[in-house]
Protein backbone atom coordinates (compact mmCIF):
# COMPACT_ATOMS: atom_id res chain seq x y z
CA UNK A 1 0.00 0.00 0.00
CA UNK A 2 2.88 2.29 0.80
CA UNK A 3 4.05 1.46 -2.67
CA UNK A 4 0.79 2.91 -4.02
CA UNK A 5 1.57 6.35 -2.60
CA UNK A 6 5.27 6.10 -3.42
CA UNK A 7 4.39 5.44 -7.02
CA UNK A 8 2.12 8.49 -7.13
CA UNK A 9 4.82 10.57 -5.48
CA UNK A 10 7.33 9.51 -8.09
CA UNK A 11 4.95 10.73 -10.78
CA UNK A 12 4.19 14.02 -9.05
CA UNK A 13 5.42 15.93 -12.08
CA UNK A 14 2.63 14.34 -14.12
CA UNK A 15 0.13 15.04 -11.34
CA UNK A 16 1.18 18.69 -11.34
CA UNK A 17 0.83 19.02 -15.13
CA UNK A 18 -2.49 17.17 -15.05
CA UNK A 19 -3.95 19.49 -12.42
CA UNK A 20 -2.66 22.64 -14.13
CA UNK A 21 -3.98 21.58 -17.53
CA UNK A 22 -7.35 20.70 -16.03
CA UNK A 23 -7.57 24.11 -14.39
CA UNK A 24 -6.50 25.84 -17.57
CA UNK A 25 -8.92 24.02 -19.85
CA UNK A 26 -11.74 24.44 -17.35
CA UNK A 27 -11.66 28.20 -17.67
CA UNK A 28 -10.41 28.46 -21.22
CA UNK A 29 -12.78 30.04 -23.67
CA UNK A 30 -14.84 31.76 -21.01
CA UNK A 31 -14.58 35.51 -21.01
CA UNK A 32 -14.16 35.81 -17.29
CA UNK A 33 -11.88 32.81 -16.96
CA UNK A 34 -10.84 32.16 -13.40
CA UNK A 35 -13.20 34.87 -12.13
CA UNK A 36 -16.04 32.35 -12.58
CA UNK A 37 -14.73 30.42 -9.62
CA UNK A 38 -15.20 33.49 -7.48
CA UNK A 39 -18.44 34.55 -9.10
CA UNK A 40 -20.20 31.23 -8.76
CA UNK A 41 -20.49 31.31 -4.94
CA UNK A 42 -21.53 34.98 -5.17
CA UNK A 43 -24.39 34.08 -7.49
CA UNK A 44 -25.47 31.36 -5.11
CA UNK A 45 -25.38 33.94 -2.31
CA UNK A 46 -27.62 36.24 -4.28
CA UNK A 47 -30.07 33.50 -5.18
CA UNK A 48 -30.34 32.23 -1.64
CA UNK A 49 -30.43 35.74 -0.20
CA UNK A 50 -33.41 36.41 -2.41
CA UNK A 51 -35.21 33.18 -1.61
CA UNK A 52 -34.68 33.31 2.12
CA UNK A 53 -35.14 37.03 2.60
CA UNK A 54 -38.03 37.65 0.24
CA UNK A 55 -39.90 34.40 0.51
CA UNK A 56 -39.00 33.05 3.89
CA UNK A 57 -38.32 36.14 5.95
CA UNK A 58 -35.06 34.80 7.35
CA UNK A 59 -32.48 36.91 9.16
CA UNK A 60 -29.90 37.04 6.38
CA UNK A 61 -27.00 38.25 8.48
CA UNK A 62 -27.20 35.14 10.60
CA UNK A 63 -28.21 32.74 7.89
CA UNK A 64 -26.08 33.55 4.86
CA UNK A 65 -22.63 33.01 6.44
CA UNK A 66 -23.96 29.84 8.07
CA UNK A 67 -25.37 28.51 4.82
CA UNK A 68 -22.22 29.22 2.79
CA UNK A 69 -19.95 27.78 5.48
CA UNK A 70 -21.76 24.45 5.06
CA UNK A 71 -22.52 24.66 1.39
CA UNK A 72 -18.91 25.20 0.23
CA UNK A 73 -17.41 22.06 1.82
CA UNK A 74 -20.50 20.08 0.83
CA UNK A 75 -20.13 21.12 -2.81
CA UNK A 76 -16.44 20.19 -2.73
CA UNK A 77 -17.35 16.76 -1.40
CA UNK A 78 -20.14 16.07 -3.88
CA UNK A 79 -18.46 17.38 -7.04
CA UNK A 80 -15.30 15.42 -6.17
CA UNK A 81 -17.17 12.20 -5.39
CA UNK A 82 -19.28 12.53 -8.54
CA UNK A 83 -16.30 13.43 -10.71
CA UNK A 84 -14.28 10.55 -9.26
CA UNK A 85 -16.81 8.01 -10.52
CA UNK A 86 -15.82 8.96 -14.06
CA UNK A 87 -12.15 9.70 -13.45
CA UNK A 88 -10.84 6.32 -14.62
CA UNK A 89 -13.15 5.88 -17.61
CA UNK A 90 -12.62 9.50 -18.58
CA UNK A 91 -8.87 9.00 -18.68
CA UNK A 92 -9.09 5.70 -20.55
CA UNK A 93 -6.62 6.93 -23.14
CA UNK A 94 -3.97 6.98 -20.40
CA UNK A 95 -5.13 3.95 -18.46
CA UNK A 96 -5.00 1.83 -21.62
CA UNK A 97 -2.00 3.29 -23.35
CA UNK A 98 0.72 4.18 -20.95
CA UNK A 99 1.86 3.32 -17.48
CA UNK A 100 0.66 5.98 -15.05
CA UNK A 101 -0.20 5.32 -11.40
CA UNK A 102 -3.95 5.26 -11.88
CA UNK A 103 -4.60 6.85 -8.49
CA UNK A 104 -3.38 10.10 -10.00
CA UNK A 105 -6.65 10.61 -11.89
CA UNK A 106 -9.07 10.75 -8.94
CA UNK A 107 -6.43 12.61 -6.95
CA UNK A 108 -5.97 15.25 -9.64
CA UNK A 109 -9.71 15.76 -9.86
CA UNK A 110 -9.97 16.31 -6.11
CA UNK A 111 -7.14 18.84 -6.22
CA UNK A 112 -8.84 20.79 -9.02
CA UNK A 113 -12.04 20.93 -6.98
CA UNK A 114 -10.02 21.91 -3.93
CA UNK A 115 -8.86 25.01 -5.81
CA UNK A 116 -12.52 25.81 -6.39
CA UNK A 117 -13.22 25.38 -2.69
CA UNK A 118 -10.40 27.77 -1.81
CA UNK A 119 -11.73 30.31 -4.30
CA UNK A 120 -15.18 29.85 -2.83
CA UNK A 121 -13.81 30.64 0.60
CA UNK A 122 -12.17 33.76 -0.77
CA UNK A 123 -15.52 35.00 -2.07
CA UNK A 124 -17.08 34.01 1.25
CA UNK A 125 -14.69 36.34 3.06
CA UNK A 126 -15.30 39.03 0.45
CA UNK A 127 -19.05 38.91 1.01
CA UNK A 128 -18.79 38.78 4.77
CA UNK A 129 -16.23 41.60 4.97
CA UNK A 130 -18.27 43.84 2.72
CA UNK A 131 -21.79 43.06 3.87
CA UNK A 132 -21.62 41.69 7.42
CA UNK A 133 -18.25 42.85 8.83
CA UNK A 134 -19.40 42.01 12.36
CA UNK A 135 -19.54 38.35 11.35
CA UNK A 136 -15.79 38.05 10.81
CA UNK A 137 -14.31 35.84 13.50
CA UNK A 138 -10.78 35.10 14.60
CA UNK A 139 -11.84 31.46 14.83
CA UNK A 140 -11.58 31.40 11.03
CA UNK A 141 -7.88 30.81 11.62
CA UNK A 142 -8.87 27.23 12.42
CA UNK A 143 -9.76 26.78 8.76
CA UNK A 144 -6.47 25.24 7.55
CA UNK A 145 -7.06 22.31 9.90
CA UNK A 146 -10.65 21.93 8.67
CA UNK A 147 -9.44 22.00 5.09
CA UNK A 148 -6.75 19.40 5.71
CA UNK A 149 -9.18 16.97 7.35
CA UNK A 150 -11.79 17.45 4.63
CA UNK A 151 -9.20 17.02 1.87
CA UNK A 152 -7.97 13.70 3.29
CA UNK A 153 -11.56 12.51 3.64
CA UNK A 154 -12.54 13.46 0.09
CA UNK A 155 -9.40 11.87 -1.40
CA UNK A 156 -10.38 8.61 0.29
CA UNK A 157 -13.94 8.83 -1.03
CA UNK A 158 -12.62 9.60 -4.52
CA UNK A 159 -10.41 6.49 -4.58
CA UNK A 160 -13.33 4.38 -3.43
CA UNK A 161 -15.86 5.77 -5.91
CA UNK A 162 -13.42 5.66 -8.81
CA UNK A 163 -12.94 1.94 -8.19
CA UNK A 164 -16.62 1.12 -7.75
CA UNK A 165 -17.65 2.84 -10.96
CA UNK A 166 -15.11 0.93 -13.07
CA UNK A 167 -16.84 -2.32 -12.17
CA UNK A 168 -20.39 -0.99 -11.91
CA UNK A 169 -20.98 1.69 -14.49
CA UNK A 170 -24.39 2.65 -13.20
CA UNK A 171 -23.02 3.49 -9.76
CA UNK A 172 -22.84 7.18 -10.62
CA UNK A 173 -26.59 7.30 -11.28
CA UNK A 174 -27.28 5.75 -7.91
CA UNK A 175 -24.83 8.18 -6.31
CA UNK A 176 -26.62 11.10 -7.99
CA UNK A 177 -29.82 10.19 -6.15
CA UNK A 178 -28.11 9.43 -2.86
CA UNK A 179 -26.17 12.70 -2.81
CA UNK A 180 -29.32 14.68 -3.60
CA UNK A 181 -31.18 13.26 -0.63
CA UNK A 182 -28.08 13.40 1.57
CA UNK A 183 -27.81 17.17 1.08
CA UNK A 184 -31.16 17.71 2.79
CA UNK A 185 -30.35 15.69 5.89
CA UNK A 186 -27.06 17.47 6.64
CA UNK A 187 -27.61 20.69 8.62
CA UNK A 188 -26.71 23.12 5.83
CA UNK A 189 -30.03 24.64 4.83
CA UNK A 190 -31.30 24.60 8.40
CA UNK A 191 -29.61 25.58 11.64
CA UNK A 192 -28.52 22.74 13.95
CA UNK A 193 -31.03 23.81 16.59
CA UNK A 194 -33.79 23.67 13.96
CA UNK A 195 -32.89 20.12 12.98
CA UNK A 196 -36.13 18.17 12.63
CA UNK A 197 -36.49 15.72 15.50
CA UNK A 198 -36.45 12.79 13.11
CA UNK A 199 -33.01 13.80 11.81
CA UNK A 200 -31.41 14.70 15.10
CA UNK A 201 -30.47 11.12 15.90
CA UNK A 202 -29.11 10.74 12.40
CA UNK A 203 -26.41 13.36 12.81
CA UNK A 204 -24.19 11.08 14.84
CA UNK A 205 -24.13 8.58 11.97
CA UNK A 206 -23.93 11.21 9.25
CA UNK A 207 -20.33 11.23 8.01
CA UNK A 208 -20.75 14.68 6.54
CA UNK A 209 -22.11 16.20 9.75
CA UNK A 210 -18.75 16.63 11.52
CA UNK A 211 -17.19 17.66 8.19
CA UNK A 212 -19.49 20.65 7.70
CA UNK A 213 -19.30 21.52 11.41
CA UNK A 214 -15.54 21.97 10.92
CA UNK A 215 -16.44 24.94 8.71
CA UNK A 216 -19.70 26.21 10.21
CA UNK A 217 -18.37 26.53 13.75
CA UNK A 218 -15.41 28.80 12.98
CA UNK A 219 -16.92 30.67 10.02
CA UNK A 220 -20.49 31.25 11.17
CA UNK A 221 -20.40 30.99 14.96
CA UNK A 222 -16.87 32.17 15.65
CA UNK A 223 -15.89 29.17 17.75
CA UNK A 224 -13.39 26.36 17.37
CA UNK A 225 -15.32 23.10 16.79
CA UNK A 226 -15.62 20.93 19.92
CA UNK A 227 -12.98 18.25 20.30
CA UNK A 228 -15.38 15.35 19.78
CA UNK A 229 -16.40 16.79 16.40
CA UNK A 230 -12.75 17.26 15.38
CA UNK A 231 -11.89 13.76 16.59
CA UNK A 232 -14.82 12.20 14.75
CA UNK A 233 -13.98 14.06 11.53
CA UNK A 234 -10.35 12.97 11.75
CA UNK A 235 -11.39 9.37 12.36
CA UNK A 236 -13.72 9.41 9.33
CA UNK A 237 -11.01 10.97 7.19
CA UNK A 238 -8.42 8.38 8.27
CA UNK A 239 -10.81 5.46 7.75
CA UNK A 240 -11.89 6.65 4.32
CA UNK A 241 -8.35 7.32 3.16
CA UNK A 242 -7.09 3.91 4.25
CA UNK A 243 -10.15 2.04 2.99
CA UNK A 244 -10.37 3.99 -0.26
CA UNK A 245 -6.73 3.61 -1.21
CA UNK A 246 -6.67 -0.05 -0.14
CA UNK A 247 -9.67 -0.82 -2.36
CA UNK A 248 -8.22 1.15 -5.25
CA UNK A 249 -4.80 -0.47 -4.84
CA UNK A 250 -6.27 -3.97 -4.72
CA UNK A 251 -8.57 -3.62 -7.72
CA UNK A 252 -6.67 -1.28 -10.06
CA UNK A 253 -4.83 -4.22 -11.63
CA UNK A 254 -8.16 -5.40 -13.04
CA UNK A 255 -9.14 -2.04 -14.53
CA UNK A 256 -7.77 -2.97 -17.96
CA UNK A 257 -10.51 -5.53 -18.42
CA UNK A 258 -13.26 -3.01 -17.76
CA UNK A 259 -12.05 0.31 -19.14
Amino acid at each position, binding site marked *: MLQFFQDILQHR*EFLREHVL*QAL*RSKYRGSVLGFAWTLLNPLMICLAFAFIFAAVNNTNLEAFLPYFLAGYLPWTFFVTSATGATLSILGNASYV*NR*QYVPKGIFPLSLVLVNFVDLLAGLVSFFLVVTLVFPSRLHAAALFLPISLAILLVFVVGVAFLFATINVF*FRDFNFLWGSISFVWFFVVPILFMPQNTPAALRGLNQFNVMYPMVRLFQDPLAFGVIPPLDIIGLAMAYAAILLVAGSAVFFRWQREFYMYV
Partner: protein
Amino acid sequence: MPPMSRPALPGGEPGAVRRVVASGEAREILLDNIGVKYRLLTEDQRTMKGRVLGIFTGGGMEAEFWALRNLSLQVRQGDVLGVVGANGSGKSTLVRVMSRIIEPVEGRVEVRGSISPMLELGGAFNFELTGRENCYLQGSLHSYKHDQMTELLPEIQAFADIGPFFDVPVKTYSTGMISRLAFAIAVQTKPDILLVDEVFSVGDENFQRKSAMRMRKLIDEGVIVVLVTHNTGLIRQLCNRAIWLDRGALMEDNKPNEVCESYMRHITR
Protein backbone atom coordinates in the same frame (compact mmCIF):
# COMPACT_ATOMS: atom_id res chain seq x y z
CA MET B 1 14.73 8.89 -13.80
CA PRO B 2 16.52 8.84 -10.48
CA PRO B 3 17.55 5.39 -9.30
CA MET B 4 15.00 3.93 -6.96
CA SER B 5 16.10 3.65 -3.39
CA ARG B 6 13.59 1.14 -2.14
CA PRO B 7 14.66 -2.49 -1.96
CA ALA B 8 13.73 -4.78 -4.81
CA LEU B 9 10.53 -6.75 -4.50
CA PRO B 10 10.96 -10.40 -3.67
CA GLY B 11 11.24 -12.35 -6.90
CA GLY B 12 8.62 -14.84 -7.92
CA GLU B 13 5.67 -12.99 -6.41
CA PRO B 14 2.85 -13.41 -8.94
CA GLY B 15 2.21 -10.34 -11.01
CA ALA B 16 5.06 -8.44 -9.46
CA VAL B 17 6.44 -5.82 -11.76
CA ARG B 18 9.90 -4.70 -10.93
CA ARG B 19 11.34 -1.67 -12.54
CA VAL B 20 14.94 -0.95 -11.90
CA VAL B 21 16.41 2.12 -13.47
CA ALA B 22 20.04 2.89 -13.02
CA SER B 23 22.13 4.74 -15.49
CA GLY B 24 24.81 2.66 -17.12
CA GLU B 25 23.05 -0.56 -16.23
CA ALA B 26 22.15 -2.84 -19.12
CA ARG B 27 18.56 -2.46 -20.31
CA GLU B 28 16.45 -5.54 -20.24
CA ILE B 29 12.89 -6.81 -20.35
CA LEU B 30 12.33 -10.11 -18.59
CA LEU B 31 9.03 -11.97 -18.74
CA ASP B 32 8.97 -15.08 -16.61
CA ASN B 33 6.15 -17.50 -17.33
CA ILE B 34 3.49 -14.82 -17.52
CA GLY B 35 -0.24 -15.25 -17.95
CA VAL B 36 -2.75 -12.50 -18.77
CA LYS B 37 -6.45 -13.09 -18.49
CA TYR B 38 -9.37 -11.16 -19.94
CA ARG B 39 -13.00 -11.35 -18.97
CA LEU B 40 -15.55 -11.25 -21.71
CA LEU B 41 -18.24 -9.08 -20.22
CA THR B 42 -21.66 -8.27 -21.53
CA GLU B 43 -23.00 -4.77 -20.96
CA ASP B 44 -25.16 -6.13 -18.12
CA GLN B 45 -22.13 -7.45 -16.30
CA ARG B 46 -20.72 -3.96 -16.04
CA THR B 47 -23.65 -2.54 -14.08
CA MET B 48 -25.08 -3.01 -10.61
CA LYS B 49 -28.52 -3.50 -12.09
CA GLY B 50 -27.28 -6.29 -14.35
CA ARG B 51 -25.35 -7.94 -11.53
CA VAL B 52 -28.34 -7.98 -9.23
CA LEU B 53 -30.67 -9.29 -11.94
CA GLY B 54 -27.99 -11.81 -12.89
CA ILE B 55 -28.38 -13.52 -9.52
CA PHE B 56 -31.94 -14.43 -10.49
CA THR B 57 -31.51 -15.09 -14.19
CA GLY B 58 -28.17 -16.85 -13.94
CA GLY B 59 -26.62 -14.30 -16.27
CA GLY B 60 -23.80 -13.52 -13.89
CA MET B 61 -21.32 -16.00 -15.32
CA GLU B 62 -18.24 -14.47 -16.87
CA ALA B 63 -16.38 -16.02 -19.73
CA GLU B 64 -12.63 -15.74 -19.34
CA PHE B 65 -9.85 -16.30 -21.75
CA TRP B 66 -6.10 -16.22 -21.56
CA ALA B 67 -4.62 -13.62 -23.88
CA LEU B 68 -1.13 -14.85 -22.97
CA ARG B 69 -0.17 -18.00 -21.08
CA ASN B 70 3.08 -19.57 -19.93
CA LEU B 71 5.12 -17.09 -21.87
CA SER B 72 8.75 -16.45 -21.02
CA LEU B 73 10.89 -14.01 -22.91
CA GLN B 74 14.07 -12.09 -22.34
CA VAL B 75 14.78 -9.01 -24.42
CA ARG B 76 18.34 -7.78 -23.98
CA GLN B 77 20.23 -4.64 -24.81
CA GLY B 78 20.91 -4.55 -28.53
CA ASP B 79 17.78 -6.50 -29.37
CA VAL B 80 15.48 -5.16 -32.03
CA LEU B 81 12.59 -7.52 -31.63
CA GLY B 82 9.86 -7.96 -34.21
CA VAL B 83 6.56 -9.49 -33.11
CA VAL B 84 4.30 -11.20 -35.64
CA GLY B 85 1.06 -13.08 -35.24
CA ALA B 86 -2.55 -13.15 -36.41
CA ASN B 87 -5.16 -10.77 -35.00
CA GLY B 88 -5.98 -11.71 -31.43
CA SER B 89 -2.76 -13.66 -30.92
CA GLY B 90 -1.71 -11.52 -27.95
CA LYS B 91 0.76 -9.12 -29.57
CA SER B 92 -0.78 -5.96 -28.19
CA THR B 93 -1.28 -7.56 -24.79
CA LEU B 94 2.40 -8.47 -24.78
CA VAL B 95 3.37 -4.86 -25.42
CA ARG B 96 1.00 -3.69 -22.70
CA VAL B 97 2.59 -6.09 -20.21
CA MET B 98 6.05 -4.85 -21.13
CA SER B 99 4.98 -1.26 -20.57
CA ARG B 100 3.34 -2.11 -17.19
CA ILE B 101 -0.14 -1.10 -18.37
CA ILE B 102 -1.30 -4.63 -17.59
CA GLU B 103 -0.06 -6.58 -14.59
CA PRO B 104 -0.11 -10.29 -15.43
CA VAL B 105 -2.03 -12.52 -13.02
CA GLU B 106 0.65 -15.18 -13.36
CA GLY B 107 4.40 -14.92 -13.57
CA ARG B 108 6.84 -12.10 -13.15
CA VAL B 109 7.88 -9.07 -15.16
CA GLU B 110 11.12 -7.22 -14.76
CA VAL B 111 12.00 -4.13 -16.75
CA ARG B 112 15.29 -2.28 -16.60
CA GLY B 113 15.18 1.09 -18.31
CA SER B 114 12.65 3.79 -19.11
CA ILE B 115 9.92 2.88 -21.55
CA SER B 116 8.13 4.76 -24.28
CA PRO B 117 5.12 2.81 -25.46
CA MET B 118 3.47 3.75 -28.74
CA LEU B 119 0.34 1.69 -28.99
CA GLU B 120 -2.02 1.41 -31.92
CA LEU B 121 -3.65 4.61 -33.09
CA GLY B 122 -1.42 7.02 -31.34
CA GLY B 123 -0.26 7.71 -27.86
CA ALA B 124 -1.85 8.51 -24.57
CA PHE B 125 -3.31 11.89 -25.29
CA ASN B 126 -5.91 14.06 -23.68
CA PHE B 127 -7.99 14.83 -26.75
CA GLU B 128 -9.33 18.09 -25.36
CA LEU B 129 -5.85 19.55 -24.99
CA THR B 130 -3.59 20.86 -27.74
CA GLY B 131 -0.58 19.00 -29.08
CA ARG B 132 1.70 21.33 -27.19
CA GLU B 133 -0.09 20.80 -23.88
CA ASN B 134 -0.05 17.06 -24.43
CA CYS B 135 3.71 17.26 -24.94
CA TYR B 136 4.10 18.68 -21.44
CA LEU B 137 1.92 15.92 -19.99
CA GLN B 138 3.85 13.23 -21.83
CA GLY B 139 7.14 14.83 -20.90
CA SER B 140 6.22 14.74 -17.22
CA LEU B 141 5.60 11.00 -17.57
CA HIS B 142 9.14 10.66 -18.84
CA SER B 143 10.44 12.66 -15.86
CA TYR B 144 10.97 15.86 -17.80
CA LYS B 145 10.34 18.99 -15.80
CA HIS B 146 8.25 21.73 -17.37
CA ASP B 147 11.29 23.87 -18.31
CA GLN B 148 13.22 20.92 -19.71
CA MET B 149 10.22 20.12 -21.87
CA THR B 150 10.06 23.70 -23.11
CA GLU B 151 13.61 23.28 -24.37
CA LEU B 152 12.77 19.99 -26.05
CA LEU B 153 9.59 21.27 -27.66
CA PRO B 154 11.02 22.79 -30.89
CA GLU B 155 12.61 19.44 -31.81
CA ILE B 156 9.35 17.57 -31.21
CA GLN B 157 7.38 20.14 -33.17
CA ALA B 158 9.82 19.95 -36.08
CA PHE B 159 9.83 16.16 -36.15
CA ALA B 160 6.05 15.80 -35.89
CA ASP B 161 5.73 18.40 -38.67
CA ILE B 162 2.01 18.92 -38.26
CA GLY B 163 2.13 22.68 -38.79
CA PRO B 164 -0.52 24.82 -37.10
CA PHE B 165 -2.23 21.72 -35.70
CA PHE B 166 0.40 21.65 -32.95
CA ASP B 167 -1.59 24.32 -31.14
CA VAL B 168 -5.12 23.04 -31.56
CA PRO B 169 -6.86 20.28 -29.58
CA VAL B 170 -5.80 16.74 -30.49
CA LYS B 171 -9.43 15.78 -31.12
CA THR B 172 -9.24 17.64 -34.44
CA TYR B 173 -6.22 15.59 -35.63
CA SER B 174 -6.27 12.93 -38.31
CA THR B 175 -4.98 9.49 -37.28
CA GLY B 176 -1.80 10.22 -39.19
CA MET B 177 -1.18 13.41 -37.26
CA ILE B 178 -1.76 11.66 -33.93
CA SER B 179 0.81 9.04 -34.84
CA ARG B 180 3.28 11.67 -35.96
CA LEU B 181 3.00 13.51 -32.68
CA ALA B 182 3.15 10.30 -30.62
CA PHE B 183 6.24 9.14 -32.46
CA ALA B 184 7.92 12.52 -32.20
CA ILE B 185 7.39 12.62 -28.44
CA ALA B 186 8.42 9.00 -27.98
CA VAL B 187 11.75 9.35 -29.79
CA GLN B 188 12.66 12.83 -28.56
CA THR B 189 12.19 12.00 -24.89
CA LYS B 190 15.05 9.51 -25.29
CA PRO B 191 13.65 6.33 -23.75
CA ASP B 192 15.79 3.25 -23.03
CA ILE B 193 13.14 0.99 -24.48
CA LEU B 194 10.80 1.83 -27.34
CA LEU B 195 7.67 -0.26 -27.84
CA VAL B 196 5.98 0.29 -31.18
CA ASP B 197 2.62 -1.29 -31.94
CA GLU B 198 1.37 -0.84 -35.51
CA VAL B 199 1.97 2.85 -35.84
CA PHE B 200 3.70 2.94 -39.18
CA SER B 201 0.67 1.80 -41.10
CA VAL B 202 -1.03 5.18 -40.74
CA GLY B 203 1.79 7.59 -41.58
CA ASP B 204 2.41 8.69 -45.16
CA GLU B 205 5.41 7.50 -47.22
CA ASN B 206 7.49 10.46 -46.22
CA PHE B 207 6.86 10.03 -42.52
CA GLN B 208 7.39 6.28 -42.67
CA ARG B 209 10.80 6.82 -44.21
CA LYS B 210 11.68 9.52 -41.68
CA SER B 211 10.60 7.43 -38.70
CA ALA B 212 12.37 4.29 -39.94
CA MET B 213 15.57 6.34 -40.19
CA ARG B 214 15.04 7.72 -36.72
CA MET B 215 14.45 4.20 -35.36
CA ARG B 216 17.74 3.04 -36.93
CA LYS B 217 19.52 5.84 -35.13
CA LEU B 218 17.92 4.88 -31.80
CA ILE B 219 18.87 1.25 -32.40
CA ASP B 220 22.48 2.30 -33.00
CA GLU B 221 22.39 4.19 -29.71
CA GLY B 222 21.52 0.95 -27.92
CA VAL B 223 17.80 1.49 -27.39
CA ILE B 224 15.84 -1.75 -27.15
CA VAL B 225 13.07 -1.70 -29.76
CA VAL B 226 10.06 -3.99 -29.79
CA LEU B 227 8.15 -3.66 -33.04
CA VAL B 228 4.70 -5.14 -33.55
CA THR B 229 3.55 -5.09 -37.15
CA HIS B 230 1.88 -7.12 -39.85
CA ASN B 231 4.43 -5.76 -42.26
CA THR B 232 6.94 -8.62 -42.28
CA GLY B 233 9.06 -6.67 -44.74
CA LEU B 234 9.66 -4.01 -42.11
CA ILE B 235 10.61 -6.65 -39.54
CA ARG B 236 13.12 -8.29 -41.91
CA GLN B 237 14.54 -4.88 -42.64
CA LEU B 238 14.82 -3.40 -39.12
CA CYS B 239 14.92 -6.25 -36.62
CA ASN B 240 17.67 -8.64 -35.57
CA ARG B 241 15.32 -10.99 -33.74
CA ALA B 242 11.66 -11.91 -34.09
CA ILE B 243 8.99 -13.87 -32.28
CA TRP B 244 5.75 -15.35 -33.53
CA LEU B 245 2.73 -15.48 -31.25
CA ASP B 246 -0.30 -17.66 -31.81
CA ARG B 247 -3.32 -17.68 -29.48
CA GLY B 248 -1.30 -16.39 -26.56
CA ALA B 249 1.60 -18.80 -26.90
CA LEU B 250 5.13 -18.25 -28.13
CA MET B 251 5.53 -20.35 -31.31
CA GLU B 252 9.01 -19.35 -32.42
CA ASP B 253 11.87 -17.11 -31.33
CA ASN B 254 14.57 -16.80 -33.97
CA LYS B 255 16.13 -14.66 -36.69
CA PRO B 256 13.56 -12.43 -38.44
CA ASN B 257 13.79 -14.25 -41.78
CA GLU B 258 13.10 -17.67 -40.29
CA VAL B 259 10.26 -16.49 -38.07
CA CYS B 260 8.56 -14.48 -40.83
CA GLU B 261 8.80 -17.48 -43.13
CA SER B 262 7.22 -19.93 -40.69
CA TYR B 263 4.53 -17.39 -39.90
CA MET B 264 3.77 -16.83 -43.60
CA ARG B 265 3.76 -20.59 -44.18
CA HIS B 266 1.33 -20.98 -41.30
CA ILE B 267 -1.17 -18.35 -42.46
CA THR B 268 -1.14 -19.29 -46.15
CA ARG B 269 -1.53 -22.96 -45.35
